[in-house]
């Protein structure tokens, strides 16, 4: 009985693994940190978030402060990104607008992850009519164009940020639910799930202990994609006027304010920064999502 152990440890892990039993999560973290795009994305997101949170410390102006003596000024030492047609400081507006966009992204991402995994995992685990009902509901949501619904409902109830987040999240969870359900369906057939049932585990314990570690990474990635989409959607909806309402700045309504030919051609400081901010944020979220996806899928591959 003493002959086995040596053989067992030999060919198991990659070189980095020898001698230590790194958890799959630790391995994934290592791999994530080696992915430059993902790390850069994460750093940019942290900086953007910090800038939005500490906006009052970074700029002396409030975003709604009107200064009619300083309208449409180009960037200068006093107004780093210039001013708009009512003399509001563009840099200040950009930072405060970031609060909106990042809030939309974060809350939508979190809501979509929670709703999506709860529904997807329930559908996959319990199967049968529960699965049928939940997935048909998801199908219905997927077949309704969210922009139209937001326009109609914002028209009826009046546009507001919470409404925007609820509606965007309400239309995004089915993507995450489908992914979660798919991975539960394949995991359910794994013998270790049967083994857990055989030692007397309840469904709930199996779901949290044995399914979630594997279901989570792809669900998080899908939620990140949905968060990026939400930021874009918020910008688009604010741009057409049914999203965040002035005077509260958002990157979308800042762009909306800049839609005349004159502004486009002669006041680029009014539309380049918010446009870049949107692109940068969405790209970063996407890179981070990809990084998580790659890191966790390799971890899975190794540990099997």
């Amino acid at each position, binding site marked *: 009985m003493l002959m086995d152990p040596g053989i067992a*440890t030999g060919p198991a892990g990659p070189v980095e693994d020898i001698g230590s039993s790194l958890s799959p999560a630790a391995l994934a973290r290592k791999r994530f940190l080696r992915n430059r795009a993902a790390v850069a994305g994460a750093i940019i997101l942290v900086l953007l978030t910090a800038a939005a949170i500490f906006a009052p410390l970074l700029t002396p102006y409030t975003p709604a402060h009107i200064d009619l003596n300083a309208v449409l000024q180009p960037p200068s030492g006093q107004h780093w990104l210039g001013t708009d047609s009512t003399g509001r400081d563009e840099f200040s507006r950009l930072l405060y607008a970031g609060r909106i966009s990042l809030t939309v992204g974060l809350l939508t991402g979190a809501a979509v992850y929670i709703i999506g995994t709860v529904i997807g995992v329930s559908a996959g685990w319990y199967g049968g009519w529960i699965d049928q009902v939940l997935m048909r509901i998801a199908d219905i949501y997927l077949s309704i164009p969210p922009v139209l619904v937001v326009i109609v409902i914002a028209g009826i109830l009046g546009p507001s940020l919470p409404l925007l987040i609820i509606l965007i999240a309400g239309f995004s969870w089915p993507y995450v639910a489908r992914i979660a359900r798919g991975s539960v369906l394949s995991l359910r057939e794994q013998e270790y799930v049967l083994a857990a049932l055989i030692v*007397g585990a309840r469904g709930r314990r199996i779901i949290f202990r044995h399914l979630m570690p594997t279901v989570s990474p792809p669900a998080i990635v899908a939620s990140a994609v949905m968060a990026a989409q939400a930021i874009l959607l918020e910008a688009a909806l604010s741009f057409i006027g049914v999203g965040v309402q002035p005077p509260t700045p958002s990157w979308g309504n800042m762009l909306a304010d800049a839609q005349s030919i004159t502004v486009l051609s002669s006041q680029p400081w009014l539309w380049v920064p918010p446009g870049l901010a949107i692109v940068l944020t969405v790209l970063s979220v996407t890179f981070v999502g990809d990084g998580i996806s790659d890191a966790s899928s390799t971890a899975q591959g190794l540990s099997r």
Partner: protein
Amino acid sequence: MTAPAPARPQPGEELLSIEGLRVDFTDDRGRAVHALDGAGYTVRKGEILGVVGESGSGKTVTALTLMGLLPHNARVVGGQIGFDGLDILRLARPQLRALRGRRIGMIFQDPMTALDPVVRVGDQVDEAYLIHHKSQSRKSARSRTLSILDLVGVADPERRARQYPHEWSGGMRQRAMIAMALINGPDLLIADEPTTALDATVQAQVIDVLARARAETGVAVVLITHNLGIIAEIADRVAVMYAGRVVEHAAVRTLLRASAHPYTRALIASRPGSAPAGERLTPIRGMPPRMLTIPPGCSFQPRCTSAGEDQRCVTDKPELVTIGELHEAACHHAGGQVPKGLEVE
């Protein structure tokens, strides 16, 4: 480490009795496939019952029915299962769950997939204990885990417990599975082809572990296998299954020396060891019946060499009848036409 509290069961007392178990599966065209057609066997406390038969004969389905873990498309349509005075088929789900892992453990064929790849092995064994001992601390669970890993022959259990399954070999993982099954000191361990997926040398070790576990904890074992050699080595009695029924039920020596059912004899004759060196093996001709419609007669009749022109084999299903001491067979020709050299001593 021996089993906790309950006094070691006295060998001989009946622990498990399965009678006339009938289970149907619904196939993807909605037809009923009769996986079990009145299967039954008994296991006494502390004994090892070998269950043999070819694939699809119902060995595993019987075990899963006992565990209450049949797939969704399966249905118990008849029979009963008694386990230490409990009527298993009538137990509510929580009661059944309390039984699983606590009083009945189970291990199966492929230890490579039976452990969660993302949870440390020791934690998985701990979990099996903590599920049934909610008030116990992780620390006491771990000390039990270490002693049970030691019992199943895992060297350096403390270090090994901190590793992930991919760092364990197949044979070691099967030991971990046995440890999980034994940690609560069950009365019955179901081992569903525990060695099929392992190398020959490792097979012998795992069988040793099972034998030792029985000797030290008094656990009864239902050993499901294709391998008559393993049965001969450690089982006390054997149930031979064919087409969803038990066709012969006897002590190992009786079965190997004086099997009464033609299927059992064919099974023994088809073993590699039975043919003289250099000769071809003796296969059992034909295929087991498809279980969509149960033939009125003996399921083995089309492949049977003893049936001959006997119409009873075509029209009447032979019942399992006692033909000797602790020896039952379901064959109209049971006991007859014993091949030369295989007579009862």
